[in-house]
C-alpha cells in the first residue's frame, strides 16, 4: 500500500534533512510515487473489483484492513493527482511566502496532511479513520498557521477548536458503535449493525457521527471555520486543502452513512434525508449570497466552496443513483475547479502580492494565461456546458427530478445564477477593466507554477467533454453504495 506509505515516510525524512531544496525534491518524489500507486490501484480495481489488504497479515475483523472500491479509487486518484500538481507548483510560491527556516517543516506537514487524507480514503476500519483524520487535521492546522498574515493564526486556532470537537464527536460515535457491535471493521459493522440498529445507543452514535463529520465537511451551519482558513492560509495550502480536504470528508460521510449504516437506516429511519437536503440547500443559497458581496477573492472562493459542498450533500440526501453519482462526480470535479482557481490566485499573489478584487484589474492583459485559467475554472464553477461543473450539476438535477423534487432542481439553477454573478464580477475585473495607471509592470507567472494551473484548467474542459471515465466510475460507485445494503 505504497499510496499512504510514500508521503508518510517522506514527512519525517524531510524534517530530518532540514534543507528546503532537498525537501521539495523529496516531496515531489513522494507524491509522484503515491500518484503512480493510486493509478495502479485504480487500474486493478476497475478490472478485478474491490481490493482488500490486511495490515501486518492480521485478517479482518481482528486486524486493521484496507479496502479500496470504485469510490475509493476515484478519490485516491483525485487527491494524489491534485497533490502532484500542488507540489510541483509549490516551490516558487513557497519561496515567496514562507521564510527559509520554516520551509522544510512546511513540506513535512504537507506530506503528513496528504498521508492522512489518503489513509482516510483507503482504510476499512473506523478507528483507523479517526486516527488518519487527526493526522491530516493536526498537520493542516500547522500549515494554515504558516500564513503571512497574523489572522492566519487566528483562523488556524478557530479551526483547531472546531476540528477537535468534531473529531471527538466522531470518536464518541465510533465508541457507541463499538459498544453495540464489538467490531471496528467497516464491512463487519455493516453486517452487524442492522440487528441492533433499533436502539438508542446506535441512534445517538449516528447523531454524533453526523455532526462530527458535518464539521469536517463544512456543512452549512458548521462551516464557520472554513472562509478564514482558506483566505489566510498560504496559497499552496489553500489550493491543497480547498481541492482535497472537504472532499475526503464528504467521502467519509458517504462511507459511513451509506456504506456502514446503510441507506434504509440513514435515510429512511433517521431523518438524515431531510437534514442533508435542507442544510445542503441552505448552504448553497446563503454561502453563494455571501460570496457575491465578498471583496477578497480568496475568501469569495472559500464561500463558494461551502456552497459547492452543499451540492454534494444535497446529492447524498437525494439517495437515488443519479443524486449520489452527482455527489461523487462533484468530489472529483470540484477538486479540479477549485484546485485550478486557488492555484491561479496563488500565481496572482506571487506576482501582484494581493488577491483583493480591486488589485486584479486588467489582469487579462498582464497575465493572460493565468487569467484564462481563472476564466475556464470559473465557467466550470458556474456549470456552463462543456465543463466539468455542468456534468455534475446535470446529474444532480436529474436526481432531484427523479425524486420528484422539482423545487430542488430550481434551487440548483438559482445557485448557478448566484455563481454566475460572483464569477462574472471577477471575470469583468480581470478581463475588461484597464489596469490602474500606477500598477507595476508584471510578467506571467513562472512556468513551474503556470504548468499545473493550465493542466488543471485543461482537465476542467477535457473531463467536461469526455465524461465516460469519471461519470462511468462514479455511477458504478454510486450503484455499489446503494445496492450493498438493499
Amino acid at each position, binding site marked *: 500500500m505504497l499510496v499512504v506509505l510514500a508521503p508518510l515516510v517522506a514527512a519525517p525524512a524531510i524534517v530530518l534533512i532540514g534543507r528546503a531544496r532537498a525537501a521539495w525534491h523529496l516531496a515531489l518524489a513522494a507524491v509522484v510515487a503515491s500518484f503512480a500507486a493510486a493509478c495502479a490501484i485504480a487500474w486493478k480495481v476497475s478490472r478485478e473489483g474491490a481490493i482488500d489488504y490486511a495490515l501486518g497479515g492480521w485478517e479482518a475483523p481482528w486486524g486493521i484492513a484496507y479496502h479500496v472500491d470504485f469510490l475509493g479509487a476515484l478519490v485516491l486518484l483525485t487527491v494524489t493527482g491534485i497533490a502532484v500538481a500542488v507540489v510541483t507548483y509549490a516551490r516558487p510560491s513557497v519561496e515567496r511566502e514562507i521564510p527559509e527556516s520554516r520551509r522544510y517543516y512546511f513540506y513535512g506537514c504537507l506530506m503528513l496532511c496528504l498521508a492522512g487524507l489518503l489513509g482516510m480514503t483507503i482504510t476499512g476500519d473506523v*478507528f483507523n479513520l*479517526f*486516527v488518519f483524520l*487527526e493526522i491530516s487535521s*493536526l498537520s493542516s*492546522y*500547522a500549515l494554515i*498557521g504558516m*500564513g*503571512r*498574515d*497574523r*489572522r*492566519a*493564526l*487566528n483562523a*488556524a*486556532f478557530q479551526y*483547531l*477548536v472546531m476540528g*477537535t*470537537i468534531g*473529531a*471527538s464527536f466522531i*470518536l*464518541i460515535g465510533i*465508541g457507541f458503535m*463499538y*459498544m453495540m457491535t464489538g467490531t471496528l471493521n467497516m464491512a463487519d459493522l455493516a453486517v452487524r449493525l442492522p440487528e441492533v440498529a433499533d436502539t438508542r445507543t446506535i441512534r445517538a452514535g449516528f447523531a454524533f457521527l453526523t455532526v462530527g463529520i458535518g464539521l469536517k465537511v463544512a456543512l452549512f451551519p458548521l462551516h464557520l471555520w472554513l472562509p478564514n482558513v482558506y*483566505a*489566510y492560509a498560504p496559497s499552496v495550502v489553500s489550493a491543497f486543502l480547498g481541492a482535497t480536504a472537504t472532499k475526503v470528508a464528504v467521502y467519509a460521510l458517504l462511507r459511513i452513512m451509506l456504506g456502514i449504516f446503510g441507506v434504509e437506516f440513514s435515510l429512511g429511519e433517521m431523518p438524515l434525508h431531510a437534514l442533508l437536503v435542507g442544510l445542503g440547500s441552505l448552504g448553497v443559497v446563503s454561502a453563494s449570497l455571501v460570496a457575491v458581496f465578498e*471583496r*477578497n477573492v*480568496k475568501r469569495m472562493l472559500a464561500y463558494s466552496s461551502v456552497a459547492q459542498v452543499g451540492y454534494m450533500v444535497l446529492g447524498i440526501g437525494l439517495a437515488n443513483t443519479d443524486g449520489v453519482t452527482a455527489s461523487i462526480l462533484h468530489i472529483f470535479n470540484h477538486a479540479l475547479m477549485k484546485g485550478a482557481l486557488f492555484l491561479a490566485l496563488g500565481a496572482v*499573489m506571487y506576482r501582484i*502580492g*494581493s*488577491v*483583493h478584487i480591486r488589485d486584479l484589474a486588467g489582469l487579462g492583459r498582464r497575465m493572460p494565461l493565468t487569467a484564462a485559467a481563472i476564466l475556464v475554472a470559473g465557467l466550470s464553477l458556474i456549470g456552463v456546458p462543456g465543463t466539468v461543473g455542468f456534468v455534475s450539476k446535470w446529474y444532480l438535477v436529474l436526481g432531484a427530478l427523479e425524486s420528484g423534487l422539482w423545487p430542488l432542481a430550481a434551487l440548483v439553477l438559482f445557485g448557478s445564477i448566484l455563481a454566475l454573478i460572483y464569477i462574472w464580477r471577477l471575470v469583468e475585473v480581470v478581463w475588461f477593466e484597464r489596469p490602474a495607471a500606477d500598477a507595476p509592470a508584471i510578467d506571467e507567472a513562472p512556468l513551474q507554477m503556470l504548468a499545473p494551473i493550465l493542466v488543471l484548467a485543461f482537465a476542467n474542459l477535457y473531463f467536461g467533454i469526455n465524461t465516460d471515465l469519471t461519470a462511468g466510475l462514479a455511477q458504478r460507485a454510486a450503484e455499489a453504495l446503494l445496492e450493498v445494503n438493499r
Partner: protein
Amino acid sequence: MYDYLVSVFLMMGALYVVIAHGNLVKKVIGLGMFSTAVFILYITIGKVEGGTAPILEEGVTVYSNPLPHVLILTAIVVGVATTAVGLSLAVRIKAAYGTVEEDEITEMNLQAEEAGQDGTEDES
C-alpha cells in the same frame, strides 16, 4: 454505572468552557477536558462485570476487554498532539497580537478589515 454520568458531566462542562471562555488558553484546556471525557467513556465500555485486568493468569476466566484501552492509548497521543499544537498556536497569537483574549483579537481583525487590508501584509 456512575462512570457514564461522570463522562457526560465532564463532556458538557468542557463544551461549556470551550464555548464560553474568550481566553484561548482556557479554550485549549476545555478541549483537553473534552477529550478526557471521551477517554473515560471508552474505558467504561471496556469494563466487563466481574472481570480482572486482561493479563493471562491461572484460575481467572473473565477479563476486561483490552481493546478500548489500546484505542484510547492512541487517542491520548492524539489529544496530547492537539494540545501541543493548540498551545503553540496560542503562543504565536500572543506574539503577533499581544493578547490571547478572543474579543480583543476579533476587534483588531475587524479594524484591519475596515482598513481594507486583505490578508497579504507581513506579520511584522
